[in-house]
Structure formats: C-alpha cells, structure tokens
C-alpha cells in the first residue's frame, strides 16, 4: 500500500476517536471505522486493568455476540503468549494494547502490513485516553445523579416535615377553637374580678399559642411555595396608625419610648396585601420591643419616589436593644433561629417570625435589610413599591359586618366535635337563630330530608359520612324533588390557601368558613344568604 493511502486511512481512523463521551457510542464509532478502513472481519475492545481478557471484559465487539465465536475462544486461550497469529481458515488475529485501559483485538482475512501495525501505536494511545475520559465522565454523571437523587430525597423529607407541621397545627387549632370561643362566652357570664384575671391569663396564653400556630402554618405555606399575596386597596394610614397605637401601649408597659412617623407625601390609600403588610409591621415592631430592655423603638415611613400611579416607600424600625452580632445577622433570617439560643429561653418565640417576614417582603417585591451593632441596637428596613388610589375607590369591602344583626331562617348544623357543637350552639343562640344540631353527615342528610332548613353549616371531617358526601346527597335529593338549592356552608379547620377554592369550585359548597369560628364571618355569610330581621 502506498504511503499516502495509508496516511489517509489512519487519519480517518483517528478522526473517529473521541467524538462522544459515552463509552459505548465512542467505541462503536472507533471500532466500526477501524474494521471498515482496515478491512477486518471482526474486532473487539476489552477493558482490563489486570491484563486478563475474556467475553465478560468486552466493552464492545463486532459482531455483538462473541461468546460462542470460535475465533475468540481460540484467542482467549492464546493471548498470554501470542500477540498475533493465525486462526482457523487462515484468518489472522492481532492483540493490541490500549495503554492503561485494556486491549483491542482485530481479526482479518489477510495479514496487516507491519508499517500499518506500527502506525497504529499513537491511535491506540488515543483510543485508550478517550475511553478513560468516557469512564471518568460516566462516573461524574453517576455522582451528579446520586447528588441530584439526594437532593430530591432531602427536598421530599423537608416537604414531609412541612406537611407534618401543617397537620399538627391543624390538629391544635381545632381544640383551640373551643378554648378561644368559650373564653369569649365566659367573659359574658359576669365573672368575679379574680375569675376575670384568670380569664385574661388564659386568653393571653391562647392568643400566644394561636400566634405560634399561625406562624407555623405560614412557614409551611412558604416552604411549600404556596404562600400568595392578595392585593386590595385599603386605607394604609389608618391601618398603620392602628398598629402604632397598639404598640405604643405595649412599649409603655416596658417603659420604652415609642416614636412613629409617616411621611406627609405617603398616599392614604394604597394597593397591597393588607393582612400580610400588617403582619410584617407587627412582626418587626414586636421584635424590636421584645429585644429592647430599655431605650426606644421608632418606626419611620418615608416616601422615596412617586409618580402618577405608584409610590416607592421605605419602612425602618429602629431600636436601642440588644443588637445582633455581625456574624449572626444572616443566620437570624433562617427559620427556627434566634441570634443566641439563650435568647429563646429569655425572650420566647419560635424563631419563625423574621423568616416569614423576610419571605413576605420578598413576595411583595421588596427586600429586608438589617443593620445592627451588638449591644447598641438594630434597624430592620424594607422598601416596597405600590400603586395608590383615590379614597372614593374604596368601597363596600371596608364596611364592617357584625354587631347585633339578626336574621330570619332555620339552620341545620352538622358538627361531630362536642366542643365545637357547644360553641356554635352558643353563638347561634345569642343570635336568636333557630337551629338543629346533628353529629355526622348521614344524620345531616336525614334531618335535611325532613325539610324546613334555610341554610346548612356543615363540618367537613365527620364520621360515617363527611361534609362533601353529605352535600352530594343533599343536592341529589333537592334535584329529585325539584327543590330550590339550599345554601350549604362548609366549616373547616383546613385553613391553607386553595382550600376555599377547592370546597366551593370543586366540591360545590356555597360558602366557606374557617375555624375558629368568627362571629363577624358568620354574620357576613348570613347576610349573604338570609333575610335580616
């Protein structure tokens, strides 16, 4: 063979090396090209660190199945002593070393020129290097996959933890519903001064417990990515002043000075999530008062920028409290963390408030900034941009519903929990409502069939038949009798976002009330579905 022809073929073989980092794919292209260009009848690549070769060490062979191939059986018997030789039928085999990887076997009908064999040396080195790169790459891919799998597992465990917290909070809220409700009723029974003090203590403890549970529920929602903000127009100045009034008295109780200022250019009505914004204010000011043994707490709201539609404003809450060591500033934003474990014992709290606050600010498009000098005090600040509106645009949603409203109508109440039954009974009695009480969904359906109800209050989790099942049967009954649809209101302690939509859109309830039962909410619902007296 002429030199140029040989060089062309060797060049083409070398061009087939290393075009993939997948070992099978790479060796398939290389071995295919080698056999084709060198007119071989068969070939195989073996990965062998111990210089032993056999079928089980073949990375790739052409043809695919060589376990019963008599040529290979013969080579496996002879390779320790021969690196080339004749096979049955006059074929030739060549055992070529792939340095630091293994071996290449070529089988050909005729002998290969010595010059070609020698020219293959750099090519063999390239094949070996490339094969090793493929193996390292696959190990890297495997490790990455393992890491990804671990990450998935960690995320799943975290999700399970959040779910557990949410479930647990839900379970605690149900009995708490009874406690808070009955405390309210107890206050109206003309207790003695001593009893009043006890009631106040129980009330305060319950409120604290409720705050913790609400924090955990909020945190679970944030962790699950389910926290959403709801933008409505409201009187910001009024709400801010209400919060300041509340904390002014708390600060006074601790002998702290409390200063609050609102920029005169701050619009009165803005569009924001009122409840969540209030929660941010309450958390930050509450923290400032909690961690300030003496001195002052001041809140400053200033306008940074405004145009015809929106305003960018900054809130700074500054205290002269215990401060935070520099290396702990970022850490206190993590859930369940306070700057010092002893703080937890001293000041109480779950360590969730700041983490929730940070997330809520971020959800609204802002960022929480902290500056602090340990032992001297801290400033927690955030900047938000919000649309503002004219006061006339704030309409009925600000009208309060409640007081001593009275309604016509007969109510069917389905509730299995005895405490809740008593609570609802008390509230409905105080409202002079006529009602029937049943303990599960089946009884609710039976009672409903007897007729005469203008509205149904239905618990969801009940024995025998749950609220959704009972509603289904009630609707079927109404349809079969051509009756007017009676409003069915679901009462549930499930207070996660999306529950309301699920109960109304998917399950067909007319309204949704979350526990602990709130008389104002009940008034709103009654006002919607019943006639006022």
């Amino acid at each position, binding site marked *: *063979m002429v030199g*140029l*022809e*040989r060089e*062309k*073929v060797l*060049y*083409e073989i070398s*061009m087939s090396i290393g075009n993939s980092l997948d070992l099978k794919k790479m060796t*398939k292209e290389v071995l*295919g090209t080698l*056999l*084709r*260009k*060198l*007119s*071989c*009848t*068969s070939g195989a690549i073996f990965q062998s660190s111990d210089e032993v070769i056999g079928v089980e060490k073949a990375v790739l062979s*052409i*043809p*695919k*199945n060589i376990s019963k*191939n008599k040529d290979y059986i013969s080579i496996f018997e002879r390779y320790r002593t021969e690196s080339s030789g004749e096979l049955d039928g006059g074929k030739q085999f060549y055992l070529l070393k792939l340095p630091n990887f293994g071996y290449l076997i070529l089988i050909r*009908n*005729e002998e290969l020129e010595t010059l*070609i064999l020698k020219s293959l040396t750099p090519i063999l080195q390239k094949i070996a290097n490339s094969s090793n790169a493929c193996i390292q790459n696959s190990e890297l891919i495997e490790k990455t996959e393992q890491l990804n799998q671990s990450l998935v597992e960690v995320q799943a465990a975290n999700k399970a933890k959040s779910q557990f917290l949410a479930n647990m909070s839900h379970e605690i809220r149900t009995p708490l519903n009874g406690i808070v409700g009955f405390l309210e009723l107890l206050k109206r029974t003309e207790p003695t001064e001593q009893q009043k003090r006890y009631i106040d203590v129980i009330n305060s403890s319950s409120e604290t417990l409720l705050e913790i549970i609400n924090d955990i529920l909020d945190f679970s929602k944030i962790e699950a990515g389910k926290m959403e903000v709801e933008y409505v127009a409201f009187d910001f100045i009024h709400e801010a002043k209400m919060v300041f009034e509340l904390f002014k008295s708390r600060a006074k109780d601790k002998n702290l000075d409390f200063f609050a200022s609102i920029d005169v250019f701050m619009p009165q009505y803005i569009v924001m999530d009122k409840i969540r914004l209030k929660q941010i204010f309450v958390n930050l000011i509450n923290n400032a008062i909690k961690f300030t043994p003496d001195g002052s707490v001041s809140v400053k709201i200033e306008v940074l920028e405004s145009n015809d539609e929106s305003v960018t404003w900054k809130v700074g809450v500054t205290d002269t409290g215990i401060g935070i060591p520099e290396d702990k500033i970022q850490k206190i934003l993590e859930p369940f963390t306070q700057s010092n474990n002893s703080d937890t014992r001293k000041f109480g709290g779950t360590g969730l408030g700041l983490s929730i606050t940070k997330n809520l600010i971020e959800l609204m498009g802002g960022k929480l900034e902290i500056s602090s000098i340990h032992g001297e005090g801290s400033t927690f600040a955030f900047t938000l941009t919000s649309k503002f509106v004219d006061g006339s645009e704030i309409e009925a949603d600000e009208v309060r519903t409640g007081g001593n409203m009275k309604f016509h109508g007969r109510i069917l109440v389905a509730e299995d929990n005895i405490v809740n039954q008593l609570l609802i009974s008390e509230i409905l009695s105080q409202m002079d409502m006529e009602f029937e009480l049943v303990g599960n969904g089946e009884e609710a359906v039976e009672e409903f069939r007897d007729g005469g109800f203008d509205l149904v209050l239905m618990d969801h989790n009940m024995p025998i038949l749950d609220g959704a099942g009972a509603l289904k049967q009630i609707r079927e009954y109404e349809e079969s009798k051509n009756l007017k649809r009676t409003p069915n209101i679901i009462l549930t302690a499930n207070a996660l976002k999306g529950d309301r939509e699920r109960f109304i859109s998917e399950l067909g309830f007319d309204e949704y009330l979350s526990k602990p039962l709130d008389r104002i909410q009940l008034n709103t619902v009654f006002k919607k579905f019943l006639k006022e007296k």
Partner: protein
Amino acid sequence: MEIEIDRSGTVDGFKNLVANIRNRGAKGVLVLSADKNGYTSENLDSFLQNLEIPVFGGIFPEIIYKNEKLDIGNVAVGFMNSVPTVHTIENISDDDVDIAEEMEEIEEEFETMFVFIDAFSTSIETVINEIYFNFGLESNFIGGGAGSLSFVQKPVLYTNSGLVEDGVTLTTIEEVSGIGVKHGWESIDGAFQITKANKNVIEELDYKPAFEVYKEVVEKHSNMEFREDNFFDIAKGYPFGISKIGTEKIVRDPISEEGGKLVCVGNVKDGDYVDILHGEKDGLVSAVKIAYSEGSGKLESDVKFTLFIDCISRVLYLEDSFQEELDAVATKDSILVGALTLGEIANTGSDYLEFYNKTAVVGVF
C-alpha cells in the same frame, strides 16, 4: 428454488405470478418488480396482507431475467426447502426508531440474509452498520436499494403487511450462498478530503465548493463541459471512491449538483478522503466476471441459481455494452434473476458490510 416470470407488469400479472409460485409449494417468495409496472399500495396491499407465505423483495428501476433486462414485469423466486424469516423495520429515517433494538429480535444463526432497503431513506448507513454490529460476517448478506429513477420516494418494499416506504426488510434463509463484489472503477485523480458533508451530500472538497473541484477534474478528463442540463450524463462516468485498506474503493455516485454541493447515493463522512474514479467499459465488464467467479468459487456445490444485484447507473453508463455484463453472469447451467438497483448491499465474507454504488454484486446458490 423455483423461478417464475411475469412479463405483463400488471396487477393481475403480479397476483398470478405469486399465486403460481405458492401453488407449486413455495414456503416463501422473493419478488423483484420493475418500477414501470406502476404498483401502488392500493393495488397490492390487500393481496399481500392475505398471502399465507412470507413475501419480500421490492420495486426497482429495472429487473433481470436470464440474460435479459426488463423495464416492465416481475420475477419471483420461490423457496421450496425452508421458510424464509422476514423482519421488517419501518420508518428507519425517524430518529425515534431504535434500529439496533429492532434487530435484537432476529435470530443470529442463519446462512444468508437478503437486505432490501428504501434507497431514499436517510438512515441507510445506520442500518448497514447495525447489521454488521449484530451479525458480523459469519453469514452472507446480499441486497440493494429499491426505488424509482424518478428519485421520488414511495412505498417500494414487499412485505406481508403491504408495500412499505422508508423501511428495510431483513430476510434470513438457511440456504448456503457465495457472494462476489466488484466494480472495476479506477482512480483518475485524488485524494481530495471531504471537508464538509451532510449525510449523503458532499458540500466541500479541500475547503472549496465540491462541484468546483469535481468539475475541474472531470471536464479536463472527459473533454466535456458541464451545463445546466447535463450533470448526470457526464457524472455517471465519474463517481467518487472512498479509500479502504486492502480492497477496492467504495464507490459513491454523484447524482445531482445543487448550489455547488454534490448529492450522492449513500452517506459520506466529514474528514474522509475520496478519489475521482472513471471506468473503461472493458474493465467494468471484466469486474462482473471476477465477481461471479469469486462468488461461485466460495460455493462448494454447483451453482443452481444466481441473484445478480447490479447498479442501474452502470446500465446508464454502459448503455448497449451492459448486455456484455449480463452475458458474463448468465450461464446455461443455472438460472439468473436480479435487479438493477439504487445502491447495492453485500459482504464478500472478508470485509465490512457496505452500501455500494455502481457496483456489481453476484450471489450464487
């Protein structure tokens, strides 16, 4: 094996031909049909689907019967001793079809495999490689590209499911065969490196537009000038040859020129070196004689039947002299049938299975 011919090329002619073979006790049938018959799926699918014996083969530009080439009609080969096993892979140009996995289902032990493929599929090389990866060279392979000289893709492969487009049929039989492959084209210039290619299109040679390089060499050698309407008239005598060590070059036929790029039958690869080939008529005919003697030399018994797979472009180039090729293969002792194909598939038992162009493949049984 039993042979039947239908010279009518009609749908009824096809049905009668196959029915006759089946009635004579054939356990399977290979049918080679001429494109001019104008068969469509509507004509034949129902008949093929109801056929009780395995069927394979296809529609080719022309067919061969004894020392005659026919541009209309059908030839059928009936397998009397054993049942051929036909495996069809459809939609081979579709990247989602795993050709290697489809081949896993085929038994590895057989004597001869017939490979008929839609010549206008874009995955011919992948199919050929996978056949080699799976079965090696222990068995013989013979076949070619089915299709029309109009270069319009259509259903051209016979199967028991009907006519198939963009597919391949792999049929294994237990009949011993001898295969000879030869083309006789010689290098006139080269080597040129393919510096840009896309599947079956050579875009650049030595970093210049492929046609520019090709034109210069061919016009000088042929004393003819390329015009807008005569590309293939000249190019049919000047194919490309891809180098291999220890064997003839693999021929790649340029069939058209599009914006300086040369469209070939069969894949080409970036980085490969090609020569420009030319063939003298005597050399081409004597190559066929060598192919026949190579094939028959590998058969221990007398030749009873010869399957001749020859490239249609050899017919177009040799014109009247093509008869000499047929005469070289047709002997009075055995029956000759064959197809003039768009690309040939074979291995000689000694080197890599290839998809050839402008090559004569002789299979003797």
